[in-house]
C-alpha cells in the first residue's frame, strides 16, 4: 500500500535530466544530466559544500528540484514524496531512533508497511545476520559502538527493500581502521544484494576503492564521470587532477598540439604529455604529473626535472621528497628512496618520467 510506486519501479536505474537545484538565489546544483545503472556502486566525490547532500536529498525526495526531473526505474518521481520512493537514505548522522531497540529500528519500515510482527522478526534477524549483528537485536542504540550503529543504519535501510540505497558520507565519523573495514563490508553487502548504491564522500580513497563509477563534483557541477581508474589516470579538468590524488602542477603556455599530445613551454623548459581536451597554441595551460610517476632519472626517461632536495618525509613503504626547482617552485616525488642510496637534504636530484605520465590541460586565469 504505501509504495505502489516502489512496487512498479523495481529496477534501480536513476536518471537525472536537466536537474537544477537553487536555494533562493544560490545555485547549489548546476544543470546535471546523468544515468546511473541498476546495480551499480556509484559515488559522488567532491569537497565539502559542493552540493553532494543537495543532490542526494533531491534523489530521495526531500528537496524538490528547481528544474528538471529525477526518474527512478524509468518513472518520474516528481509527484512522489520521500515516503513513496523506492529509495532508502542513510543519513550523515545515521538518524537512528534512540528510543527503539536495534531490532525495532530495523523493523520500523516494515511496521509502517503493516507487515505482521512474525514476518517482521524473520526479516529483521536475516538482516542482523547480513550486517553481522546477530544477537544484538534487543540492545538499545546507545549501547552500540560507532561501527555497529553504522551497520544498524544499513540494515534499517535495506529492510524496506529499496531499489536504490543512498549513502551520505556514512563512514566519515569512524576512525581509520573501522573506516577501511566498513569500506570492504559495504562493497560486499552491495555485491550480495545487487541493488544500486549511490554513495557520497569527500574522501577520494573511499570513492576510488569502492565504486564502479565516480562522479567528481565541484561547486555544484559534475566535472567528470568515469571509472576510478580513468578518474585517477586520465583527469579531464584541472580540478579533478588536483582533487583526486596528488599532482605536481607546472604552469605555462601551449606550444604545440597535435590532437592527442601537447607540448607546453614553461619556466623550467618544454614538456610534452597527453593532451586533455581540445587545446590551441599560446593558451594558458599546465603540465600535471603525479609524484609517484617521478622516479630517479634514467636515460630512457623522456622528461627530466632537476632540483635541490628541501624536504624528505619517510613514510615506511616509501618516502616523499620535495625538490626546489630553479624557478623556486616545489616538485614532489615519491618512491625515490628504494632506488637510490638514501638522498640527503641539500643534494641535487634528477627525477624523470615518460610522456604518457604527464597531462597537459588548459587552465583559466587563477584556476590551479
Amino acid at each position: 500500500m504505501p509504495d505502489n510506486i516502489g512496487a512498479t519501479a523495481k529496477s534501480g536505474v536513476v536518471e537525472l535530466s536537466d536537474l537544477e537545484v537553487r536555494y533562493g538565489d544560490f545555485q547549489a546544483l548546476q544543470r546535471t544530466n546523468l544515468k546511473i545503472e541498476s546495480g551499480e556502486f556509484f559515488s559522488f566525490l567532491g569537497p565539502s559544500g559542493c552540493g553532494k547532500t543537495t543532490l542526494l536529498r533531491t534523489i530521495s525526495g526531500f528537496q524538490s528540484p528547481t528544474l528538471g526531473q529525477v526518474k527512478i526505474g524509468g518513472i518520474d518521481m516528481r509527484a512522489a514524496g520521500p515516503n513513496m520512493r523506492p529509495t532508502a537514505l542513510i543519513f550523515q548522522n545515521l538518524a537512528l531512533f534512540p528510543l527503539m531497540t536495534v531490532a525495532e529500528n530495523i523493523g520500523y519500515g516494515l511496521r509502517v508497511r503493516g507487515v505482521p510482527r512474525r514476518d517482521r522478526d524473520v526479516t529483521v534477524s536475516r538482516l542482523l545476520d547480513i550486517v553481522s549483528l546477530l544477537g544484538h537485536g534487543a540492545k538499545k542504540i546507545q549501547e552500540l559502538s560507532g561501527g555497529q550503529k553504522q551497520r544498524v543504519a544499513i540494515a534499517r535501510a535495506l529492510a524496506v527493500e529499496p531499489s536504490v540505497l543512498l549513502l551520505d558520507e556514512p563512514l566519515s565519523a569512524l576512525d581509520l581502521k573501522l573506516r577501511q573495514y566498513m569500506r570492504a563490508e559495504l562493497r560486499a553487502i552491495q555485491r550480495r544484494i545487487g541493488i544500486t548504491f549511490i554513495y557520497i564522500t569527500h574522501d577520494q580513497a573511499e570513492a576510488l576503492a569502492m565504486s564502479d563509477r565516480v562522479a567528481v563534483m565541484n561547486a555544484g557541477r559534475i566535472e567528470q564521470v568515469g571509472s576510478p581508474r580513468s578518474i585517477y589516470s586520465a583527469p579531464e579538468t584541472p580540478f579533478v587532477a588536483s582533487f583526486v590524488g596528488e599532482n605536481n602542477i607546472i604552469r605555462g603556455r601551449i606550444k604545440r598540439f597535435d590532437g592527442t599530445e601537447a607540448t607546453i613551454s614553461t619556466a623550467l623548459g618544454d614538456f610534452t604529455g597527453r593532451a586533455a581536451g581540445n587545446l590551441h597554441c599560446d593558451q594558458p595551460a599546465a603540465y600535471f604529473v603525479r609524484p609517484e610517476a617521478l622516479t630517479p632519472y634514467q636515460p630512457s626517461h623522456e622528461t627530466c626535472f632537476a632540483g635541490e632536495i628541501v624536504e624528505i618525509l619517510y613514510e615506511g613503504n616509501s618516502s616523499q621528497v620535495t625538490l626546489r626547482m630553479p624557478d623556486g617552485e616545489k616538485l614532489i616525488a615519491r618512491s625515490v628512496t628504494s632506488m637510490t642510496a638514501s638522498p640527503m637534504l641539500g643534494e641535487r636530484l634528477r627525477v624523470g618520467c615518460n610522456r604518457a605520465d604527464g597531462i597537459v590541460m588548459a587552465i583559466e586565469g587563477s584556476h590551479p
Partner: protein
Amino acid sequence: MRSSLALSLCLLLPFLVTAILLAGGLFRRQPNASPGPGFFRRNGPAVSIYLVIAVSAWVFLTIVFPQIAMIDLSFHPNLPPKKIGGPEDVFTLENYRYFVFGPVSSTGSLNTLHLGAYAATITASVAVTALNFILCYPIAFYMAQSALPRALRRLIILLILPYWINEVLRVFAVRLLLSDAGIVNRMLLATGLVGTPVDFIGNNVGLYWGLSYTCILTMVFTLYNALESLDKSQIEAARDLGAPWWHVHMFIVMPYAKPGIASGCALTFMSCVGSIAAPLVLGGPRTLWFTPVIYDRFYQALNWPLGAAYAVILLVSCTVFVLLSLRILGLKLGQIAR
C-alpha cells in the same frame, strides 16, 4: 501565639539553612574531599549566600509554610478569634466530612452540590487539557521543526502579546465577544446561520474557550521546548522509510516529546483546575467550578477552616492525579523538568 511562632520560624529558617549549608561547605573544603570545586567555591561566597537565602526563603515562605498553615487550619473548627487556642480549638475532621456529607442539619445523605462542582471541575479540566494539547501540538511542532527564524520570532510575539493584558481583562473580553450581542453572535445572525443568538456562556463554550486561552501559552512553550531538541533527521528517516505523517507523529515525535507533553499537560491541568477568573466570569449560571466554591467558603461563608479543607482536598487530589498519570505514562517526576 501560634501564628507568631510560625512567623518567627519562617524568618529564622532561611538563616538556619544557610548556616547548615555553610558548615557543610566548609566541611567539604577539607583536603582530599570531593574533587572539583564545591558549590561555594564555584559561585563565590556572596552569590552563594544570596542563593541559599533566596532559594530557602522562596521554598519556605511561599510553599512550605503557607501550605502547612493551610493544612493545620483545615483540621480546626471555625471559631471566632477570641476562642482560637482555647479549649474548643481541637483537632477535628469535621471540615472534610462536610465536603462529603454536607451540613449536619441537611437532609441529603451527600453534599451533592460541592461534590458535583468538584467532579465537574476535574472532568472539565481534563477535557480542556486534552483540547489544549490538540490545539497546541501542531503550533509547537511548526515552531520547533519547520518555521524559519523570522517567522518563528513573529509567531512568538503574536503568542505572547495577548498575555501582556491582565487575565481578568482578557476573560472579560472573551465574555464580550461571546455574549448575546457580541461580535460572534452578530456575525452569525448577519450571515443567517442562526435565527436567535447562541447562548455561548450558558452552554459553557465561553468557559472552555477562556480556560484554553488562559493555558495556551504554557502548553505551546512547554511542547516547543520539548520538540525543539528533536533532530530533524529523525523525522526524515522515518519519512524515508515510508512512514506517513501521522505515523511519524505517533511513533517518532510524540514518544520523544513524552516528558514535555506530560509536563505541559500537568501544568495546564493544574492551572485550569486552579483558575478562578475564567470560571467566575465565563461560567454559565448552572456551572459551579470548584475554585469559586473555595473562594466563597473564605469570603462569603467566612468559614476559613472549611475553605482551607477544600483547598487541601483540591491540591492533594490533583497532585495525586498528576502523579498517577505520570506513573501510567512510565515517567518520573524528574524527567518532566527538563
